[in-house]
């Protein structure tokens, strides 16, 4: 449905040219959610703009429903729905008027009334868009993207600024689109969103694809889960020196006091036993401990910090 191959995008800068995208490639399939995940400024929105054909790639190829989307005709536009990050909604009209107007641009639009019910737009349908809250605009933007019953939908940060209820409504609708066979491409900087929604995750950092695959594939790259525990008192040099030498003990510097310690290299129960034996030797009683599977967050941190360390 969508295919990007070695897409570059650069813009003129003070000295030469600045590369926003340095070779982005990925495919998005029908009936799947493809999430572009990455920190702010990674190039997610630029990638999306190029995929939609609003922006032009400096080099590389883009195929959306088989054609180059840049300056594509009305036929292609009628099959692709877009929700922009900042909405792009006209301020002076009401949500209802906008949706009914958009519906007239298509021969077989969605039922606007049902769409408004589904996204709970009815409660503010008569209000000018300038007077809507961020979450209300977000839901309206989503509705606008779906008016043409598209085969491909682009959602730029769909959960930004949503309260928990709106978030649930939007997420359920994304699941429903997926079941209907729509190809969904979304960006997010929230790992839990990607983990929850995405069939295919494309990790983008500094204009490059760092990793891509299903959530399972990405999180399965390292099967040894980290073991963490929290101690109320600081460890002495002697205690640290006595720690089982085949394991590594690192202090999680991101957490505040009391300190959280992370043990790498746990392979099985024997390793856990070595740690608890060490506690016993030094009379250490953790206030909290946990053995969790690797989350997308761990992968994300590994990928986004590995060469900075």
């Amino acid at each position, binding site marked *: 449905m969508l295919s990007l191959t070695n897409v570059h995008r650069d813009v003129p800068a003070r000295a030469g040219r600045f590369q926003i995208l340095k070779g982005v490639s990925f495919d998005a399939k029908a009936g799947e959610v493809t999430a572009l995940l990455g920190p702010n400024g990674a190039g997610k929105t630029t990638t999306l703009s190029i995929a939609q054909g609003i922006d032009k790639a400096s080099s590389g190829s883009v195929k959306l429903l088989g054609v180059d989307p840049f300056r594509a005709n009305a036929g292609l536009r*009628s099959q692709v729905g*877009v929700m922009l990050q900042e*909405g792009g909604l*006209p301020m002076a*009209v009401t949500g209802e008027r906008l949706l009914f107007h958009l519906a007239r641009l298509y*021969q077989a639009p969605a039922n606007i009334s049902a769409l408004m019910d589904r996204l709970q737009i009815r409660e503010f349908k008569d209000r000018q868009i300038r007077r809507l809250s961020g979450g209300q605009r977000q839901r309206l933007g989503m509705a606008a993207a779906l008016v043409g*019953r598209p085969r491909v939908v682009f959602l730029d940060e769909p959960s930004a600024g949503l309260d928990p209820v709106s978030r649930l409504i939007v997420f359920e609708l994304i699941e429903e689109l997926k079941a*209907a066979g729509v190809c969904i491409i979304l960006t997010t900087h929230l790992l839990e969103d990607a983990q929850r929604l995405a069939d295919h995750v494309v990790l983008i950092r500094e204009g490059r694809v760092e990793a891509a695959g299903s959530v399972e594939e990405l999180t399965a790259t390292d099967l040894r889960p980290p073991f963490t525990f929290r101690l109320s008192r600081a460890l002495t040099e002697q205690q640290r020196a006595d720690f089982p030498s085949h394991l590594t003990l690192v202090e999680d510097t991101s957490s505040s006091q009391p300190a959280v310690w992370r043990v790498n290299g746990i392979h099985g129960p024997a390793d856990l036993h070595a740690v608890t034996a060490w506690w016993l030797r030094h009379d250490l009683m953790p206030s909290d401990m946990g053995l969790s599977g690797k989350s997308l967050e761990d992968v994300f941190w590994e990928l986004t910090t590995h060469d900075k360390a």
Partner: protein
Amino acid sequence: MTKLDLTPVEEPHSSTLLSKVIAQGRYETRITMTNGEQLLVSIILPLLALTGLFVTGLFDTVEGPSTIDIATPGILALSVLSSGLTGQGIATGFDRRYGVLQYLATTPLGPIGLLLGKVVAVLMVQVTQVIVLGAVALLMGWSPNLAGLGTAALFIVLGALTFTGLGLFIAGTVRPEATLALTNLLWVILGAIGGVVFPVADFAGSVVIDYLPSAALGNGLRSALIDGSFDGAAFVILTLWGIILSVGTIRWFKWR
């Protein structure tokens, strides 16, 4: 409650250009009509100019047509510039700034649909302008040549296309702040010395001005409403400008 069906439509299903233009025209007309500032530019300013000319009797001569007969066609031309060039230019400039155009670019509307939709809106506003300005002028003693009404309508349609094209061309190529300045400046300059309100013969060495779309619109309307005649040269000039500006807009328009 109807069930929401989001099954994708397998084939391209954009509406026809005609339905899109009508839809966009209706939509833009409503926005313009509910926008106070824009109505001010479209109706109040030409009305002030009309009153000013009437009170000063600037065009009064011993034998020729009265000031109001000369001024009214020019004021109608000026109101086309107001709603087409200034009104739509500024509105489109801000739509571009706030990403509305970028959003529209992702819909099946297309640049031709946007331009023609806005022309329809300008013409709808124009109907209101003609009624209001015409009524006030009649009260001031305007006696239009009825034989030229059809020709006048033709020139107004051509003028709406040309100046909406110019407004969108500016809005689609320069920054919104520059659009605001440029369209207002052009309105003042063309309105004052572009042959819109003041007949070109009043200026020395004004050969160039006759070829401007503003003079062509003013001259065409004056010939029609004063003498009831059809100004062929003005028609050709205005048509050419209309084509050049529409094609230029569609070709160079930037949606963001």
